[in-house]
C-alpha cells in the first residue's frame, strides 16, 4: 500500500486505481471554505486508508468532509480523523460512508476524535452511514471531549508542568494516527507540522 499526501480542495475527487494510504494535507487551515474529499472505489479488492490530523488555534475554523463511496464488492476503507482545538478554534467535520447496492462484502470504518483543549473551542461532527447492501461491515465512532484531567494529574505528579503535561497527552493523542502512516518521510513531515516528536 502506497502512502500519498493529498491536498484537499473545495471538491477534491479521487477514483482509486490501486490500494493506497491517503494522508490529508489541509494547508489552508483557518479559511472558512469547506475542504471536501470524495474517494470512490470502482475496482473490487481495493483497500484505502484516509488519515487526517489537525491542530487549530486562535480563531481558526476548519470545515472538512470525507466521503468514501463503495461501488463494487470487496473493498475496504478505514478513515481516521483526529483534531486538537485550542483557544476559540472551531471544527466542523462530515464523514460519510456510502455503500451502494452492488458493493457486498465491503468493510468500511470511520473514526473521528476531537480534543477540546481551549475553553472556547467548539466542534460539530456528522458521521453518516448510507448502506444499501446487506453483506457488509460498516461502522463509525465519534468522540469529542476535553483532556482527561486524570492523565494531566498523573503527569504533574511526576514533575511535569501543566503545559508539559498537556503536550505529552496531545502527542499521545496523535501518535496512534501517526504510527499508521507507513511512509517515513510523510510521517515525519506530518509530525513536524503537528509539533509531535516522531
Amino acid at each position, binding site marked *: 500500500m502506497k502512502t500519498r499526501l493529498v491536498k484537499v480542495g473545495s471538491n477534491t475527487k479521487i477514483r482509486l486505481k490501486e490500494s493506497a494510504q491517503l494522508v490529508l494535507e489541509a494547508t489552508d487551515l483557518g479559511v472558512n471554505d469547506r475542504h471536501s474529499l470524495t474517494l470512490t472505489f470502482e475496482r473490487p479488492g481495493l483497500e484505502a486508508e484516509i488519515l487526517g490530523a489537525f491542530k487549530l488555534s486562535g480563531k481558526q475554523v476548519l470545515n472538512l468532509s470525507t466521503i468514501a463511496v463503495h461501488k463494487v464488492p470487496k473493498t475496504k476503507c478505514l478513515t481516521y480523523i483526529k483534531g486538537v*482545538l485550542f483557544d476559540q478554534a472551531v471544527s466542523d467535520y462530515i464523514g460519510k460512508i456510502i455503500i451502494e*447496492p452492488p458493493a*457486498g462484502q465491503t468493510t468500511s470504518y470511520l473514526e473521528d476524535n*476531537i480534543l*477540546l*483543549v*481551549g*475553553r*472556547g*473551542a*467548539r*466542534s*460539530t*461532527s*456528522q*458521521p*453518516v*452511514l*448510507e*448502506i*444499501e*447492501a*446487506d*453483506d*457488509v*461491515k*460498516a*461502522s*463509525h*465512532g*465519534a*468522540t*469529542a*471531549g*476535553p483532556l482527561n484531567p486524570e492523565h494531566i494529574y498523573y503527569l504533574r505528579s511526576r514533575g511535569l508542568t501543566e503545559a508539559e503535561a498537556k503536550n505529552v497527552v496531545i502527542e499521545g493523542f496523535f501518535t496512534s494516527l501517526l504510527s499508521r502512516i507507513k511512509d517515513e518521510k510523510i510521517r515525519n513531515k506530518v509530525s513536524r507540522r503537528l509539533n509531535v516528536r516522531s
Partner: protein
Amino acid sequence: MSSKNAGTFRLESDLMGQRQLQASAKKRTKNPLNRDYKAKYGFSQPERHVFKAKKGLGPEIVRQLSTMKGEPSWMLDFRLKALEVFFRKPLPTWGGDLSGIDFDNIHYYIKPTAHPERSWDDVPREMKDTFERLGIPEAERKFLAGVKAQYDSEVIYDSLRKELAQEGVIFISTDEALRTMPELFAKYFGKLIPPNDNKFAALNSAVWSGGSFVYIPKGVVVKRPLQAYFRINAANMGQFERTLIIADEGSYAHYVEGCTAPVYSSDSLHAAVVEVFVKPGARFRYTTIQNWSGDVYNLVTKRARVEKNAIMEWVDGNLGSKLTMKYPACFLVGEGARGEVLSIAYAGKGQHQDAGAKMVHTAPHTSSSIISKSVSLQGGRTSYRGLVSVSPNTPGVKNRVECDALILDSQSASDTFPTMQVNDSSANIEHEATVSKIGEEKLFYLMSRGLTEAEAMSLLVSGFIEPIVKELPLEYAVELNRLIELEMEGSVG
C-alpha cells in the same frame, strides 16, 4: 390499497427463486396470515359517523371543528393561526419521501357514533388469528376488532381512575382538559411545541382532536403504568391527537400508548404532537409501541422539557406505516437533568422508518443517552437521524449514542445521520454506530441445533432488540416479540 399491495406482492414473487417460491407457497398454505399487510390485518369496519367534515383543509373546516367541540375563542384563534403557518411552511426536503401525501384527500375531523356495531362473527378470520397469535386478551380483542366501542374492562378503568383521583392524578382526554381545567391547560398547551415549530406540528395545532392530558401532582408516585389503551375509545384514536403531560416536582409516572395490534386507519396521515413537562426532581417515562397499517404516513413531534435533576425517558417502538418520521426530543434545561431515548425501528416491505432522537443540553452537568436498534428486511429502509447539541457555558455535559442496524437481505437499506454540536469544551460526547447483517456462523449454529432458518433468524432478531424490549411492560414485550416472529415468517427461504 388492495390493488397496490397485490402488485407489490407479485413483484416480490417474481424476485424469488423457483425453489424459494415453492417453499414459501407451502408456508403460506400452512399459515394464511403470512401474506402482506392486507391479508394479515387489513380490516375495516363499515363507517357510521354522526358527523364527518368534508375532505380537504381550510379555515371553514377549522371553524366548523372548533364550533362542534364548543371550544373557547382563544383556541379557535390558535387553530387558525396554526393553519396559516401550515400553509406557509414548505414540506421538509430531508428525511423520507413525503410527496405521496394528498392533503386534500383527508378527513380532518370525524365525530364517531357512540356505539359502532359489529358482530364478532363478522370479524375476519385472519384478524382473529392475529389476535390469537399475539396473545391479546379476549376482552381487548373485541374492542380492537371494533365490536365494542368501549373497552370491555371499563370496570377496571373506573377503579383505576378512582385510585388515581385519590392522589390527585389527572388522566383525561385533551378535549376534556380544555373544557374542565382551562387555566392549567392554557399555561402549558403549545408552549413546548409551538405551531411554527414544523409543518406537521402546525397541521396538528390547527386540527387536533383527542389525545391524553396527564397531570401528576408533586411527589406522587404512580405505580401502575398509565395506559392510554384503557382510556381510548374511537373518539380519541384520532389522526391528529395532541397529548400534554405535566409531571410536577418529585413525581414519577409511566405513560404507555399504542399496542402491538395493528391500527387500522381510514386516512393515511397521522400527525400527532406530544408535549411533556418534567419538573425538578421528577421522573417520567413515555412508552410508544405502534403498528400502523402499511399506507400511513406517521409524522409525529414529541418533545420534553426536563428541569433540574429530573429524568425523562422515551421508549419508542416504530413498526408498520409507510413512512415514519419521529425524533423524540429532550430539552435538558435544569442542572443535573437527564434524558434517555430507547428506540426500535422495524422496516419491512415498502416501509421507511426515519426515526431518531434529539438531546439539547442547555444546562450544566446534564447527561443523556440514546440507544437505537433498527431492523430492515424485504426492501425496507431504516434511518437513524439524531442531534446532540451542547450550549456554551454548560460544564460537565455527558452524552452517549449507540445505533445498531441490522439488514436482513440485499434489497434493504439503512442510514445513520447523527449530528453532534459541541459548544462547550468540557463536554464528553461519544457516538457509535454499526450496520451489519446476521452472522452466518450464528445462523449455522442455531440451524445445527435443529431450528429452521426462519426460526433462527427470528430468534437472532429478538436477541438483537432485547435490550430495549426488556424495558417494556411485560405484556407489551411479549406481544412485540410475537409480532416480530409473525412479521419475520416467510422473510427467508
